[in-house]
């Protein structure tokens, strides 16, 4: 026991120091405060002392002492501001972690009943609120606090009422009705619950109190209490309040109630009809979209999006503005466009007095003020503030997703938003349209408007639009031609969009094979009698056309008959070079490729389930290996790994899982090899070679485990724990090897570190431990007391036996595992022209890359750009958060600029650019005290893959650069 104490003491020297300090400061902190406060001759001084005191943190143990002193001073103090500060300090102190504030509740409540100043009262209530939220379980305290709140509710000062309502909102319970007996005198007051009490203050004279009362209600709702429907009419009244914060809160309240009681029936005032509550509230919130305050408008527009139960009749009103000109009904431009389209007449543009109204409107029938939802979105989308417009677009989108007919109707409005003055709004509306595009088919005139945006100079907009076109359904073959034409135009204007345009055409072709079919001869410019010149194979526009045609041909077997000879040749070439864009086709007379291809595709399509099964079976097979030493185990592992790798190649859906398993098994295999019998029975000097082998194996396993942990997304805690187990094994192996080769002092440090890691494992994966029976970790944890006490050499010995006896853990696969990957699209690395710049100055290199399945590229793991110069210098560049864009789920686009600089070279040379994944796990942080992602590891001599804490994410791309000496 003694030894152990000794050890821990020596182990954690840095932790001991603060502990000591803590003991020293405990009495002095409160004492110092006391002295300071006594010294203070006037309130200003006292206030100064308190302010400076508030800046320093107080330890949990000394909080109570400090509180006592503060209270003591409080009673003596006459000045309001000092008392106020003390009250606020009490609140702050009771938030200190580790301090239980229930001991000061009484004091605070008693001061509350004695104080006269309203501000101080409000602050004291605030302190109570803090205490109350700190002690949610203590019902006695809660009950008392509620009583206190009720008592002060009829204060004349708004702040006190505010705080009381807040208290009620945070702590009040619905199930227990309140007695108002504590309230002065009259015992006639009936039993009332918190909601009733709070709702009394909906009509308070002070807008701040009205807001607080609504907020308190919302707080109650947030805490899972069901609000009563009676509050609805009150909330609706508050929608017409003079103050914006009240209206804003009221809108929320109405929304909450509409979600709680969507189907209950409410009467329409001034008529004897009744409607569903959700419809009524929808109309009311719609009304708020044209409120005077833009904050309220944003809120209303946002909330509309989540009211999906509203009846379609009301929903469609939101897009209807009832156009009228000189008392005659006028058709909207949208309606006119639709009619033109329906009648087949081509738009000749609008003429003077073209919107001549058709039918005379009955004057009494025109309702100028919208009774409800009428035109809410029309207003919202035309709003002055772009925040409102964005909110409206979002709401429109989410409503349209749940209602196809509404989606059809709002299409025109979304398309109109493509012309907004703010790019963010345009982008948002393109995204919105993409999300609802499954419901809709674009008409030609709509497509025309959509396609006009392709010329936008903003790359984001264009790419969003390409993405949209991927999902778009169009109605006629003219539409396809139009789209192709515009995309080709886009391609010539912005050649960098190549990949995106091709991809877009791939989907467009695959979606509309029958519409592409009639225009194939035209597209490929073939002629029935004459041979046409063979187009240039390197022309991006021609490739674009081919991508469209081939993808259409995939589901249209008659199409290949229209191809000319060179088309087939080009197909073979493109199938090879751009296999992700060009699908496999069954071409007549091309048996040999077809057979192989069809086999592949059959494996691909039909047998996902069987592949899954195969994967499971392999894992089961492997899991039967109880002992790593058993004969044939190695072979089995070897084969399984091979199988899994192949499976991953064949079955893209399972690639992540298969790779994951293969890597994991590979780790096991390495471990197994390293632990082979003969190695350990020999004397150390005799097996230097084996030692080296084992240590590289250990190193490799470590690296692999980091990959396993950070490169794959979709892992559950259990898998992570398994990986950590393997890592611990590898570390143990390393430790043993070090112990065997080197003797002396460093071993102690290493042992301590190892034990810390074991502890860490226990802390992190406590819940997962039951799954780890007979595993290395479990055994270690069992032996932990012994391990801690024993000498390093003994420890090593124990480790050695445990390591060799421990069981192989069966890997359980989660639903979906994806392997993170990245491809650098730009630079392509094909250019022969070096990038020239003056040495010593900086040149910017544009990087464009797509990341797939990278879990949250900015927070948990960090994607970085690594640049390796020919002289071995390496730089790591951190892209800005704004450089990451998310075009779709699981995909991230990184568009950034990398600044390169170097001293002069005589020849142009290639530098390597690659994407790296920097990870930060708590364990690795412990292992390497220096963080691996310091700003730039300049001049760090690094070999291929040994950048600390990073994993290679993409293949390196070589870029020619040529720093020239500056001319003088």
């Amino acid at each position, binding site marked *: 026991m003694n030894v152990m104490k000794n050890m821990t003491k020596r182990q954690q020297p840095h932790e001991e120091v603060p502990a000591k300090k803590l003991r020293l400061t405990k009495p002095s902190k409160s004492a110092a405060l006391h002295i300071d406060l006594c010294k203070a001759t006037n309130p200003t001084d006292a206030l100064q002392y308190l302010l400076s005191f508030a800046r320093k943190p107080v330890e949990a143990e000394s909080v109570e002492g400090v509180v006592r002193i503060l209270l003591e001073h409080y009673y003596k103090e006459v000045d309001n501001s000092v008392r106020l500060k003390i009250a606020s300090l009490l609140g702050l102190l009771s938030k200190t972690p580790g301090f239980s504030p229930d001991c000061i509740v009484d004091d605070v409540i008693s001061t509350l009943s004695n104080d006269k100043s309203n501000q101080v009262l409000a602050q004291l209530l605030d302190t109570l609120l803090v205490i109350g939220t700190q002690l949610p379980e203590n019902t006695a305290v809660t009950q008392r606090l509620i009583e206190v709140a009720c008592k002060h509710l009829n204060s004349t000062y708004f702040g006190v009422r505010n705080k009381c309502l807040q208290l009620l909102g945070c702590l009040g319970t619905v199930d227990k009705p309140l007695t108002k007996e504590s309230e002065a005198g009259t015992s006639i007051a009936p039993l009332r619950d918190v909601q009733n009490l709070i709702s009394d203050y909906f009509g308070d*004279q002070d807008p701040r109190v009205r807001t607080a009362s609504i907020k308190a209600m919302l707080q109650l709702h947030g805490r899972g209490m069901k609000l009563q429907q009676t509050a609805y009419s009150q909330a609706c009244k508050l929608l017409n309040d003079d103050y914006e914060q009240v209206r804003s809160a009221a809108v929320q309240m109405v929304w909450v109630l509409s979600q709680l009681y969507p189907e209950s029936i409410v009467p329409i005032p001034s008529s004897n009809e009744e409607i569903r509550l959700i419809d009524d509230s929808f109309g009311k919130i719609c009304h708020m979209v044209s409120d005077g305050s833009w904050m309220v408008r944003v809120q209303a527009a946002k909330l509309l999006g989540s009211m999906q139960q509203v009846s379609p009749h009301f929903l469609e009103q939101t897009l209807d*503005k009832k156009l009228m*000109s000189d008392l005659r009904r006028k058709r909207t431009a949208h309606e006119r466009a639709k009619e033109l389209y329906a009648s087949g007449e081509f738009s000749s543009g609008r003429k003077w007095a*073209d919107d001549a109204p058709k039918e005379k409107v009955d004057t009494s029938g025109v309702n100028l003020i919208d009774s409800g939802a009428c035109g809410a979105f029309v207003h919202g989308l035309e709003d002055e503030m772009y925040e409102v417009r964005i909110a409206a677009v979002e709401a429109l989108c989410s409503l349209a997703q749940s209602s196809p007919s509404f989606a059809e109707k709002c299409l025109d409005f979304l398309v*109109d938003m493509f*012309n*907004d003055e703010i790019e963010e709004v345009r982008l948002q509306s393109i995204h919105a349209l993409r999300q609802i595009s499954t419901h809709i088919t674009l008409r030609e005139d709509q497509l025309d408007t959509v396609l006009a945006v392709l*010329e936008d100079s*903003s790359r984001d907009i264009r790419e969003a639009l390409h993405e949209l076109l991927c999902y778009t359904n169009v109605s006629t073959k003219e539409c396809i031609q139009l789209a192709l034409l515009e995309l080709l135009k886009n391609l010539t204007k912005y050649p960098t969009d190549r990949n995106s345009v091709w991809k877009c055409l791939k989907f467009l072709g695959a979606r509309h094979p029958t519409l592409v079919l009639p225009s194939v001869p035209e597209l490929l410019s073939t002629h029935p009698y004459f041979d046409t010149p063979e187009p240039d194979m390197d022309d991006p526009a021609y490739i674009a056309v081919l991508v469209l045609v081939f993808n259409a041909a995939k589901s249209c077997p008659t199409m290949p008959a229209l191809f000319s000879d060179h088309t087939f040749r080009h197909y073979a070439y493109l199938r090879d070079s751009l296999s992700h864009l060009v699908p496999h086709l069954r071409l007549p007379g091309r048996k040999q490729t077809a057979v192989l291809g069809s086999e592949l595709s059959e494996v691909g399509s039909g047998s996902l389930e069987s592949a899954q099964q195969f994967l499971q079976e392999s894992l089961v097979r492997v899991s039967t290996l109880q002992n790593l030493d058993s004969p044939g185990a190695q072979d089995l592992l070897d084969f399984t790994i091979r199988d899994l790798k192949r499976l991953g190649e064949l079955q893209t859906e399972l690639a992540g899982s298969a790779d994951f398993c293969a890597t994991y098994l590979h780790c096991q295999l390495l471990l197994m090899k390293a632990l082979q019998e003969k190695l350990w029975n020999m004397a150390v000097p005799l097996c230097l070679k084996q030692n080296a082998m084992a240590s590289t194996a250990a190193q490799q396993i470590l690296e692999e485990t980091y990959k396993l942990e950070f490169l794959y997304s979709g892992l559950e805690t259990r898998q992570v724990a398994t990986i950590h187990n393997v890592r611990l094994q590898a570390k143990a192996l390393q430790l043993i090897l070090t112990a065997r080769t080197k003797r002396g002092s460093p071993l102690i440090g290493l042992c301590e570190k190892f034990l810390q890691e074991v502890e860490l494992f226990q802390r992190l994966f406590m819940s997962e431990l039951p799954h780890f029976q007979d595993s290395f970790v479990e055994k270690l944890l069992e032996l932990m007391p012994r391990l801690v006490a024993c000498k390093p050499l003994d420890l090593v010995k124990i480790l050695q036996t445990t390591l060799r006896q421990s069981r192989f853990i069966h890997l359980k696969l989660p639903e979906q595992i994806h392997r993170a990957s990245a491809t650098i699209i730009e630079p392509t690395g094909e250019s022969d022209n070096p990038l020239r710049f003056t040495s010593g100055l900086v040149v910017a290199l544009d990087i464009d890359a797509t990341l797939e399945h990278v879990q949250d590229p900015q927070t948990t793991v960090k994607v970085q750009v690594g640049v390796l110069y020919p002289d071995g210098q390496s730089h790591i560049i951190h892209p800005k958060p704004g450089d990451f864009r998310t075009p779709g789920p699981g995909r991230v686009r990184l568009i950034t600029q990398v600044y390169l600089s170097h001293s002069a070279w005589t020849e142009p040379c290639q530098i390597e650019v690659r994407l790296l994944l920097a990870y930060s796990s708590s364990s690795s942080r412990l292992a390497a005290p220096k963080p691996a992602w310091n700003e730039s590891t300049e001049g760090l001599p690094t070999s291929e893959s040994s950048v600390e804490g990073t994993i290679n994410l993409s293949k390196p791309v070589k870029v020619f650069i040529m720093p020239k000496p500056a001319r003088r």
Partner: protein
Amino acid sequence: MPDIKVTPLGAGQDVGRSCILVSVGGKNIMLDCGMHMGYNDDRRFPDFSYITQNGRLTDFLDCVIISHFHLDHCGALPYMSEMVGYDGPIYMTHPTKAICPILLEDFRKITVDKKGETNFFTSQMIKDCMKKVVPLNLHQTVQVDDELEIKAYYAGHVLGAAMVLIKVGSESVVYTGDYNMTPDRHLGAAWIDKCRPDILISESTYATTIRDSKRCRERDFLKKVHETIERGGKVLIPVFALGRAQELCILLETFWYRMNLKAPIYFSTGLTEKANHYYKLFITWTNQKIRKTFVQRNMFEFKHIKAFDRSYADNPGPMVVFATPGMLHAGQSLQIFKKWAGNEKNMVIMPGYCVQGTVGHKILNGQKKLEMEGRATLEVKLQVEYMSFSAHADAKGIMQLIRMAEPRNMLLVHGEAKKMEFLKDKIEQEFSISCYMPANGETTTVTTNPSVPVDISLNLLKREMALGGPLPDPKKPRTMHGTLIMKDSSLRLVSPEQALKELGLSEHQLRFTCRVHLQDPHSDSDTLSRIYSHLKSVLKGYAVQHLPDGTVMVESIVLKVSSSGEDPNLKVILLSWSYQVNVENFLATVSLFWIRVIMQL
């Protein structure tokens, strides 16, 4: 009863020559002082002789307020102030003050120099007039004199357009000028707080129109321009120098930037450049986008738009030209039109209304051959497009403003009578407020119900609040106990004690007494003690005392027992209470009741 009088001198059931007289709370205010574009004689200015037959207006007007710089709202200003004579303050916003003299000078030049009119105001008069102007800021309350205050609100429409709230005491009037409730490319939407004026004087140009979304029109406009440019054609856009021109410029400028277009855009020089300068300066008056981005780039510093030179019209290749005037009736726009009319690739876009008789009106109506001066005919082959970019509130916008301001009465001006009629009905129907639409020279009188402010002592107020149980409902009137003192011209509400003290009066107490006859054989003191013990047992929670002088006190109610002379058994119980608080009344009744109960025993 006090009332507010509104008399339009112009713009009553009419568009143009806006000039409205308002007298409120004894103050006379002139709202706008515009001219009529349609007349060239005396009718173009408002009839100021309505105010006074001879002499200056200064004595009759407290102030003049100009809503924005359009000539139909400020065109008669120098005439009124310098030629008729007015020396009082003229209020307008900063941008209006900056731009208004430019337009007035331009107008003067055209009428005097070109048309050769005499008896018109001079440049010096414009300058002198401008010296009398007091600039206004948005939401700034300006005290014209001790009682009259005005406050400006943002109105959209054009740069610097404002709505004004005029307030005298508790009576108030809002005048909107021209306003726009939908934002456009360079200006925001009009906004007003819930000021609940007695009268809201609103324009009603589009009283019977509900307009299509602005974005459709913009998109159509851009599409047409773009298509023509791509064909290699030229686009002519005739505009008036200020207002819409800037909006269209911004629209094209951003479109050019977005689409990376290279074709040149020209703007005919002159007045416009000076005006553009002011647009650059008054960024705070523009919309959100321009206000937020001007640090990076001022939207009015056009990159793609250059000054036009006459020789450019013959340049080959596509181009877009903005040229004045807007109706193609004269000047540069007509010259360019003549040059380009023959080519069907070209296009002319009319962004606004065209008066009958102008070339613009003719071509919009599809005329293909135009007779020019000198018997020459011009064949119109180019495409003619019409696109309305008007910045007035439509019927829905007007309704929205009414909802925002919640006025007690409504008054419509600046619109056609027939359309106003329709809107008037609608307003009366939907808001159930009365709505007026006076013609020029017709006076509308609205009776107001002004609130009379009374000072109340804080102590009294607090005491009353403390009495009243739960907090008072702000929406409901409440009775309270106090004394109203009217002294000189001040009204004060004080507590009765204080009132007595101030007025040097002594307090009189009123006591109610009541006799109850009771058959009781006991002696007087016994009866009293019986009553006492009974009341004590019944009225728990109240102070019931038996005083040594032979009385019983229940709170402040005194009970005495005496036997009548004739019948010793017949006791007379005397109850006496002061008229003060309800509780005691109640108690007295309760006491009586219980005594009667005892009696029956």
